[in-house]
């Protein structure tokens, strides 16, 4: 009797231990933190994917949303407070500061061979470690209002700086109320100067990791940018928001934005305005040069905790399932990252997207500051330097040299 009792107690103990072990290995609840899960159209689409996955896998996915402008600070605070868990939506620009926190799991082992494009995978890596799975990858490229260009007598999209300047002058002559090129001139978004620095043969951070800002090409690019302002071909204090709204009103010839520029213009334009948005690869200095742009995109990272396995599986479903990627593209116009989804008729048959992918994103490079935890401060220093040139407070050479010195301090 006593032996039986002991046996029963041992069996119950083993059973309880097994249950707790299973529970520890396969949590029934994961958190999905993001900003898109609470924004307009994307909310229903993303929660729809999450619900489908949750039902199929008998788990609960709890969405946690923060506004985009506050997102990084909130997520960093959550991570430092030990509150961050599960899958986390991340902008490609935030991978380095998030990786520096040491809370993200290396997902290299869960990435299936040949599913994602190499460029997409690289956009979610920091120092070669796969800290996130690519959800959408594109670039910040230039778009143009075809009707406005035609009205100003511009029949061909400019491919060189010379042709671009001629097009801008034609737009200015056609209607002085039009901003020919709504380039970012607000200090917070002056990082848009970087592709122009590359266009003029300059660089920001050299291959050996030293700061090269202030070289001949970067000085030439900033001088050119400032000359556009002097000639009223670009306008002062323009940020992306202003540019989008003015473009949608038919008051801007060219501006730089993410691939969503087409749908944003369609959503904001007056009903009676004809507006055809076309992607324009950044004009180059000499025929044959590669058009420059910066990578843009979203990744899904996974916090390295007990829920990490389940969260990684969900992240893989969300980003790596071709049907999900195609549906995401159809509903939100955000390009997928898998080879299969990109090759699908839906994606490849869209001229706007295929032009953007093949002629803009194909040559895009990551922002040179992204690899550093202090990237936001570095971008600010660059922006302030360019602004001081706009204001006539410093020459391009002096302003960039001063910024380079401060950026070098941050690198060290």
């Amino acid at each position, binding site marked *: 009797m006593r032996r039986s009792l002991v046996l029963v107690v041992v069996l119950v103990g083993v059973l309880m231990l097994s249950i707790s072990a299973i529970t520890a290995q396969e949590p029934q609840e994961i958190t999905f933190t993001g*900003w*898109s899960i*609470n*924004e*307009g159209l*994307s909310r229903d689409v993303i929660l729809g994917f999450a619900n489908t996955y949750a039902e199929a896998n008998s788990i609960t996915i709890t*969405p*946690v*949303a*923060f*506004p*985009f*402008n*506050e997102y990084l600070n*909130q997520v960093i*605070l959550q991570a*430092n*407070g*030990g*509150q961050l868990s599960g899958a986390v939506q991340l902008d490609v620009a935030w991978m380095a500061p998030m990786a520096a926190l040491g809370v993200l799991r290396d997902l290299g082992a869960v990435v299936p061979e040949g599913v994602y494009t190499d460029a997409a995978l690289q956009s979610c890596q920091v120092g070669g470690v796969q800290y996130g799975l690519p959800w959408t990858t594109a670039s910040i490229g230039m778009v143009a209002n075809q009707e406005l260009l035609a009205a100003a007598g511009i029949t061909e999209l400019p491919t060189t700086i010379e042709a671009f300047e001629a097009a801008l002058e034609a737009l200015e002559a056609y209607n002085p109320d039009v901003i020919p090129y709504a380039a970012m001139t607000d200090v917070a978004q002056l990082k848009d100067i970087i592709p122009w620095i590359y266009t003029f043969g300059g660089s920001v951070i050299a291959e050996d990791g030293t700061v090269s800002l202030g070289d001949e090409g970067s000085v030439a690019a900033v001088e050119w940018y400032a000359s556009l302002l002097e000639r009223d071909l670009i306008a002062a204090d323009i940020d992306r*928001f202003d540019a*989008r*709204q*003015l473009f*949608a*009103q038919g*008051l801007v010839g060219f501006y730089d934005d*993410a691939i*969503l520029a087409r749908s*944003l213009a369609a*959503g*904001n*334009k*007056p*009903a009676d305005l004809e507006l055809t948005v076309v992607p324009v690869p950044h004009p180059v200095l000499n025929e044959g040069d590669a058009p420059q742009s910066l990578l843009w995109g979203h990744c899904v990272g996974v916090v390295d905790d007990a829920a990490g396995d389940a969260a990684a599986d969900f992240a893989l479903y969300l980003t790596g399932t071709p049907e999900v990627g195609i549906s995401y593209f159809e509903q939100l116009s955000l390009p997928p990252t898998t080879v299969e989804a990109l090759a699908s008729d839906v994606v490849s048959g869209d001229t706007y997207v295929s032009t953007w992918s093949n002629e803009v994103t194909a040559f895009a490079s990551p922002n040179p500051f992204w690899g550093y935890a202090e990237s936001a401060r570095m971008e600010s220093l660059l922006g302030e330097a360019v602004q001081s040139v706009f204001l006539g407070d410093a020459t391009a050479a002096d302003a960039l040299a001063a910024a380079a010195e401060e950026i070098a301090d941050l690198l060290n």
Partner: protein
Amino acid sequence: MTTSTQQLSSLTMVTGKRERSTERLLLIGGFILVAVFAFFPIYWMLITSLTPRDQIFAFPPRFVPTAITFEYYADFFGNPALLKYLLNSFIVAGSTALSSVLIGVYAGYSFSKFRYTGRRALMFLILSAQMFPQTLLLITLYLLFARLGLLNSYWALILSFTSFTLPLCVWMLKGYFDTLPDELIEAAKVDGASQFTIIHRILIPIVRPALISTFLFAFIRGWNDFIYALTLGGPEYMTLPPGLVLTYIGEFQTSWGNLMASSLIVSLPVVLLYILMQRFIVAGLSSGAVKG
């Protein structure tokens, strides 16, 4: 001579009248200018909240909308998440105001009418919380609440808001108690009133205007806060300011019509409170300011 004096007198009167009416016109003009400056943003909010989506950014801007829509207001009241945020705002701001007034009235009375060792040091210590940037305190409070398991709760919001409103509430009420003559308290003591009776049956009815203005100050602080409500409240207990930003300001787009309509709705309770309690607020603030 008499005629010329009369003429001079009537001329002086006419000139005086003219000067007075010029002054009056200038004053009215000044008031109109200030009113336009103060109310134009509110007017712009109102018309944006009534303008159909495709006309909000029409160029040149229209000061009177050519078409009107109430869809943004309907969106607000048809969105359960926003109504939940609204309820959270009432709970958090109301609790913050109540706790600030409740603690503030006793602390203010103590600082005003009692003399004890460390009184002045304590008074300035209470104010010291106001001297740190709130962002710094946010990080500390976040980590503290995380340890205590208070994050994502009403408690996190009420405690943090109260910690900011309380110092000023204490000082406001102390200033008001300072204006009350000590003889009043002495007379009550002579009549055999206890401290409890003195404060609850004699002083609190007198300082009612100050309590109301203090309540409103604390309520508005709790009602308008953004960053603490976003960080400490979590999705379940978030109040309206972060809730509106979360709902209507996105990575690429801002729903200005919705945002303006919601902002007008959000400001209504505070405006109504001001209108209803205007008499007390003016009395409370001016009395406390006489002596402090």
